[in-house]
């Protein structure tokens, strides 16, 4: 039976075959890479350039027949002088800082415990990882039930430990508690992700280093600070980078849980941006808003990757 590759080669028309035989390795490589580059340009770079262009206009996507006026930097000026957007940035900062701190602390602790060899280790890992497998919309939905003042389990657990009346407080209805409600739900959902990254870091540390430390009579505490933490640090930093970028863009979980309320207290930047773009239909204005967020995330990611490389070089 003829080899299918040979058969296909024989079936190639002679002029085409001659052309292919005459191509250099570099050209063939470019032929393979070109579709991906084209796709990247079409899907990533073109929309980015188009957004930057729109940010200098008063374009509204729901009024395509209106004249598009070049407004220069007016959109940027209005955004950067708007106290509502300023408070949205503060809500995002609160969410970002607390979710990262809690997820790293709890995630690393869980990874440290799971890394110890004990019976049922794999079962516990699966149970802990479970929240991460759910859709953010589902998580948002059932946390709204957990936070219900009358029937919510969360209120009853808090009441059990504090003695307060379960129906005396509402996590998603109170302006002081709502920012924490979204932090808790996100931490519950994404701590397993941080735990998995930390676990990979902890498992990459060779046992021989700990054995050498034991021979030098180093205490467990000293081993933790001089071996475990420095060697797991690149993984921890990677987890912070991933969660930082993801939480800066957080949308679905918070929309489902609080819808940005009460008032605007949990309106994060991505929720506000969506409202400007697809509820108020201020396309030019929202493009400028998106560019500001993009530059911020890009800048942060750049310095973070630099720091990560430095840690890896050590």
């Amino acid at each position, binding site marked *: 039976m003829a080899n299918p590759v040979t058969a296909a080669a024989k079936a190639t028309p002679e002029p085409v075959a001659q052309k292919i035989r005459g191509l250099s390795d570099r050209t063939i490589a470019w032929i393979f890479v070109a579709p991906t580059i084209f796709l990247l340009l079409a899907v990533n770079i073109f929309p980015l350039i188009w957004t930057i262009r729109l940010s200098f206009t008063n374009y509204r996507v729901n009024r395509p027949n209106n004249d598009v006026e070049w407004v220069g930097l007016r959109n940027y000026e209005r955004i950067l*002088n708007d*106290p509502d957007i*300023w408070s949205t940035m*503060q809500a995002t900062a609160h969410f970002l800082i607390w979710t990262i701190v809690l997820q790293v602390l709890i995630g690393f602790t869980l990874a440290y415990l799971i890394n110890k060899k004990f019976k049922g280790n794999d079962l516990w890992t699966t149970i802990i990882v479970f929240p991460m497998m759910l859709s953010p919309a589902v998580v948002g939905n059932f946390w709204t039930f957990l936070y219900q003042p009358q029937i919510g389990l969360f209120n009853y657990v808090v009441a059990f430990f504090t003695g307060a009346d379960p129906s005396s407080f509402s996590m998603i209805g109170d302006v002081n508690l709502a920012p924490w409600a979204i932090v808790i739900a996100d931490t519950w959902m994404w701590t397993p992700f941080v735990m998995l990254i930390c676990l990979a870091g902890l498992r990459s540390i060779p046992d021989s280093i700990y054995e050498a430390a034991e021979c030098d009579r180093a205490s467990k505490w000293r081993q933790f600070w001089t071996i475990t933490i420095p060697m797991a640090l690149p993984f921890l930093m990677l987890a912070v980078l991933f969660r930082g970028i993801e939480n800066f863009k957080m949308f679905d979980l918070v929309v489902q849980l609080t819808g940005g309320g009460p008032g605007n207290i949990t309106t994060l930047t991505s929720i506000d941006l969506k409202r400007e773009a697809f509820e108020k239909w201020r396309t030019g204005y929202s493009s400028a808003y998106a560019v500001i967020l993009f530059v*911020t995330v890009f*800048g942060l990611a750049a310095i973070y990757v*630099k720091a990560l490389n430095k840690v890896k070089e050590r």
Partner: protein
Amino acid sequence: MSAFIIGLLRLRRGPWEMLASILIALGVVMLMQPFLLGLFTYSFIVTLIGTVMFIIVSHFPE
């Protein structure tokens, strides 16, 4: 400190990247701080200068 300034004058990557990183971090802090609206207003330009500087100076020699 003097090594840092000499590095800047000789267009070396390390000190320039450090300066760009400081500008980016400062811009982000200005963007998210809850104290002065004026700082928020100028946060974007600081972050933008830092980010563009970072992209350019990452091509400087070590």
